């Protein structure tokens, strides 16, 4: 008889911002698009690169790459996929309004060789050119032209961008209907080129913003899968016979940053001086934080304390690093040595709806620092306000999380660790809100970028991290765990980049 249609319902705390695959570079949105669109490459559950729309590629020279495209692939509307679409896509992501411009250097040439071959010529050598291309989703050129969507969704014009509300990918699912922030229905793409590993016919996605409502929906069986699950509820989700919790380390590293660029802290009672410029103070702060307590109590074991600014998952030599010990006495001693026997006062910026238990972590940090005499004013705020503030470098002490989207350490150097010089190199270390700077590291980073030998490169990276550690430049806290919940009768593959990929889902 006919097999019963399998409908999979799942919930996340928010919705994909747009269906336009180039509009926003944000984890969930991209992860959602990944079910509909595909890139030249994709990552398996272990995050290894595997061919997708490109079957293979080679480096003809350090600045010249060739990609061979998969033949016989059609878009959801039936158009065939070919090199024109790839060239179109890479042009499109560099236009105004695209949030994906950084996936490719601006002066890179994209050349159609034949219908199924595309060349990339870069100005500088880039051994990791394609590392982030799992997120560069290929759009159908003709479709975009017909629907006047050749530009990425541009917020400055009032015209609806067709691509923002409609999707035409090559991926395993097609969009059946969509109501932003309410419900999006996907159906199986019967003509997918790959062999489906999933058995879904229909997928209903609902954003549920309240944690407890989301958990309730999972527990009551209204959805088959929900994430994130608050860490404290994992036990209950697990204990419930109909559901189970899926956890695993995420790639994101949560850390604390301190303003080390100003001569006087913006938000502090210390006048004329910046305590964070003193390496002893930074060490004191580091050592005052009891990361194990945070793991045990706030994260309920759902985190891996980190010694590095990158997940061990993404850096081969991470086992060479060990987190400096928690030592409040030493901390107090260091503060006294640095001239702050009674501590000092500083304000801390913290998002309260961005990372797992972000506000609670900050509160705990505040309490721990209080014990060594540092009096922290906690300013916990919604992410929009938080980012507005830190993006303006208007902070003295903050908590941030970072996932290198290339899954490579260079990304961390380039965004967080290298010297911040807004006038000379505006895009470099843009997210180094504290302005940590050590020219030695900058020099290393430049080598890392061009070094193609894996082992050597790793050594360079480790060296940089050692300098950072000695400088106590950042205070890495942990990699938070992914916390998903799913009905017991569905099989969901969790990947550490926190993307929920439907093509790995199976239902009984």
């Amino acid at each position: 008889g006919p097999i019963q249609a399998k409908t999979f319902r799942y919930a996340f705390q928010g919705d994909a911002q747009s269906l336009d695959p180039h509009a926003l570079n944000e984890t969930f949105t991209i992860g959602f698009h990944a079910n509909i669109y595909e890139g030249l490459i994709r990552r398996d559950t272990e995050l290894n690169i595997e061919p997708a729309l490109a079957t293979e590629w080679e480096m003809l020279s350090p600045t010249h790459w060739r990609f061979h495209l998969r033949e016989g692939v059609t878009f959801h509307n039936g158009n065939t996929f070919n090199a024109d679409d790839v060239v179109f896509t890479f042009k499109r992501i560099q236009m105004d309004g695209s949030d994906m411009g950084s996936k490719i250097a601006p002066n890179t040439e994209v050349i159609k060789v034949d219908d199924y071959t595309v060349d990339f010529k870069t100005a500088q050598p880039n051994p990791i050119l394609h590392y982030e291309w799992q997120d560069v989703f290929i759009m159908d050129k003709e479709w975009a032209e017909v629907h006047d969507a050749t530009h990425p969704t541009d917020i400055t014009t009032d015209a609806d961008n067709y691509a923002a509300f409609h999707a035409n990918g090559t991926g395993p699912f097609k969009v059946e209907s969509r109501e932003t922030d309410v419900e999006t229905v996907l159906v199986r793409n019967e003509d997918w080129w790959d062999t489906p590993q999933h058995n879904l016919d229909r997928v209903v996605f609902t954003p549920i913003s309240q944690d407890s409502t989301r958990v309730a929906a999972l527990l009551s069986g209204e959805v088959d899968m929900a994430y994130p699950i608050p860490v404290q509820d994992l036990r209950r989700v697990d204990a419930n016979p109909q559901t189970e919790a899926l956890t695993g380390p995420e790639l994101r590293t949560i850390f604390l940053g301190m303003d080390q660029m100003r001569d006087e802290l913006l938000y502090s009672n210390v006048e004329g001086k910046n305590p964070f410029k003193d390496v002893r103070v930074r060490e004191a702060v580091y050592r005052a934080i009891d990361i194990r307590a945070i793991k045990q109590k706030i994260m309920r074991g759902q985190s891996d304390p980190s010694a590095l600014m990158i997940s061990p998952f993404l850096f081969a030599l991470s086992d060479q690093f060990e987190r400096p010990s928690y030592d409040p006495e030493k901390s107090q001693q260091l503060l006294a040595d640095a001239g702050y026997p009674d501590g000092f006062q500083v304000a801390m910026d913290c998002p309260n709806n961005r990372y797992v238990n972000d506000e609670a972590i900050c509160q705990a940090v505040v309490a721990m620092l209080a014990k060594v005499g540092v009096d922290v004013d906690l300013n916990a705020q919604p992410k929009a306000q938080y980012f507005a503030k830190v993006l303006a470098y208007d902070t003295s002490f903050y908590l941030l999380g970072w996932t290198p989207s290339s899954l490579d350490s260079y990304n961390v150097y380039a965004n967080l660790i290298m010297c911040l010089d807004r006038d000379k190199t505006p895009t470099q270390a843009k997210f180094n809100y504290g302005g940590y700077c050590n020219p030695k590291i900058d020099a290393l980073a430049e080598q890392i970028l061009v070094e193609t030998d894996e082992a050597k490169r790793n050594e360079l990276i480790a060296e940089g991290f050692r300098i950072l550690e000695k400088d106590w430049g950042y205070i890495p806290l942990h990699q938070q765990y992914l916390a998903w919940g799913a009905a017991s009768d569905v099989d969901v593959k969790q990947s550490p980049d926190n993307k929920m990929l439907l093509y790995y889902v199976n239902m009984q």
Partner: protein
Amino acid sequence: MAASNKSDLIHRPGLTGALARALDSDVAYSFRQSKITMLAAAITAIFFLAALFAPWIAPHDPYDLTNISLMDSFLPPMWMEGGDARFPLGTDDQGRGILSTIIYGARASLLVGFAAVLLAAAIGVTLGLIAGYLGGTADALIMRVAEVQLSFPAILIALLIDGVTRGVLGGQGEGNLAFAVIIVSIGLSFWVQYARTVRGSCLVEKNKEYVQAARVIGVHPALIVMRHVLPNVLGPVLVIATISLALAIITEATLSFLGVGVPPTQPSLGTMIRVGNDFLFSGEWWISMFPGAALAILVLAVNLLGDWLRDALNPKLR
């Protein structure tokens, strides 16, 4: 002509007389008659005293961060397995004792409630008196503004003001400023009721003959408003004040729930409930339920007092 010999008998001069009269009054009588009201008053008084003397009463100071330890977090109430006698009602996610935090949290809630109500009453009564006594353009203007204001419920206005201040100040100088922001937000959203009521009473009072008598004597209009009209419109103001105290406390809690409340390091009852909400499913019910119960009891008690006051001050209902 001695017409009042009889009343001389019950005349008691001085303070004791005043006190005796107050105790003997109808309001006091109706108070003594209603067990529920007395209970409500007792509960309110307990909350107030506890809030006032929190540092001396609470087992711990949950606002003193050197005092709390993350390792004490999530302890269940004393009588449950794993409970700790230091924390009779258990601890929250930061290791603060729930009991102490309730006491301090009530302090925060009452502070916000009180200050907001005072602010609202001050604005509302002043504008109401001006509108009612002067009439004309002032009246029209104030009442139009009130009408605009009315179209937004308190929670919306509070969200707005809170958002604006945060936007303008960039969220800096948290702590006391956050309190001020919440107080102002709630205060500004509650004034209309006072203004309308006071204006209404004022329109009635100003035509009463005792006000006209003062005018004939030549008392300055400002003085007439202050000394004659004001005390006589305070009855309804008192009633609104109690009820809006309850409302303000709830509004603060709701704002905390929506994430724009008082700073998390100085939790109010609302903040506690919001935080505790996250631990309802995980079985740590005490984090939200005790503060929730405390909030409900406090608000209920204040509401009951307000209710009673409304009836007691309304001679028609006696």
